[in-house]
C-alpha cells in the first residue's frame, strides 16, 4: 500500500545561548501550552524528561533546550513553529528582564530600584525597552 501523506517538518527556537539557558523544561511546557491554546489546537503537551512533547491527529512537536521541531501532515508546521519561536523568545526575554531587575535590586540594597517602560527611537526605528535606575 502506498502512503500518500507527506509530512512536513519545520524547526524554530531560541538561538541566543544566553537566553536559551534561562528556559527550564517546566517553563517551556507552560509556553507550549499557551501557544497551542492561542492557536486553538487540541491535545495536552507533556514533559518527558527535559523534552516537551505534543501530539495531535495530524501534527506533533517536540521542544528541548529552546529548540522546537514541528511535524505536520497538513502543512501546519510553519504556523505552529513560528508561534512557538515567538513564544519561547518572549518568555526568555521576560526571564532575562527579571534577572537584570533582581541583580540591580541586590545592588540597590535598601535604595529603591526605579523601573519604567520606555520607547527608544534609533535611526528611525522605535523600540520598546525597560529602563532600570539604581543608586547605591
Amino acid at each position, binding site marked *: 500500500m502506498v502512503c500518500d501523506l507527506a509530512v512536513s517538518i519545520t524547526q524554530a527556537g531560541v538561538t541566543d545561548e544566553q537566553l536559551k539557558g534561562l528556559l527550564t523544561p517546566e517553563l517551556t511546557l507552560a509556553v507550549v501550552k499557551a501557544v497551542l491554546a492561542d492557536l486553538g489546537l487540541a491535545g495536552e503537551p507533556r514533559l518527558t524528561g527535559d523534552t516537551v512533547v505534543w501530539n495531535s491527529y495530524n501534527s506533533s512537536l517536540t521542544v528541548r533546550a529552546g529548540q522546537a521541531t514541528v511535524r505536520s501532515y497538513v502543512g501546519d508546521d510553519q504556523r505552529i513553529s513560528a508561534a512557538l519561536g515567538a513564544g519561547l523568545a518572549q518568555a526568555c526575554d521576560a526571564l*532575562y*528582564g527579571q534577572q537584570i531587575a533582581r*541583580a540591580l535590586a541586590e545592588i540597590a*540594597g535598601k535604595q529603591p530600584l526605579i523601573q519604567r517602560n520606555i520607547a527608544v527611537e534609533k535611526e528611525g526605528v522605535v523600540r520598546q525597552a525597560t529602563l*532600570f535606575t539604581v*543608586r*547605591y
Partner: protein
Amino acid sequence: MDRDIRVVHYEGTGELEIFVDGQRLPFEQAAAITREFTRRVSAGIPGGLALLSAIESHKAGGIAHSHVVGHHKQEVG
C-alpha cells in the same frame, strides 16, 4: 557620593545599554558585560555581585570602590 547605574533592556533582543555614573558605555563594552554577567550568574554568583563585577572588569577605570555582599553594599574605598 552615591553612584548610579542605569540599564536599558531592549525587549525581544536581550540587548542592554548601560550607563555608569551618567556615562554611557560603548556598545562593545555593554555586550561584553552582558555576556560576563550571564556567565557569572550561570556559575552561581549572586546577580548583583555578578553585574557589578562584570562592569568592573570591562569598564575602563572600573567601579573599584564598592562591592556587593548579598543584599548589602560595603564601601571599601
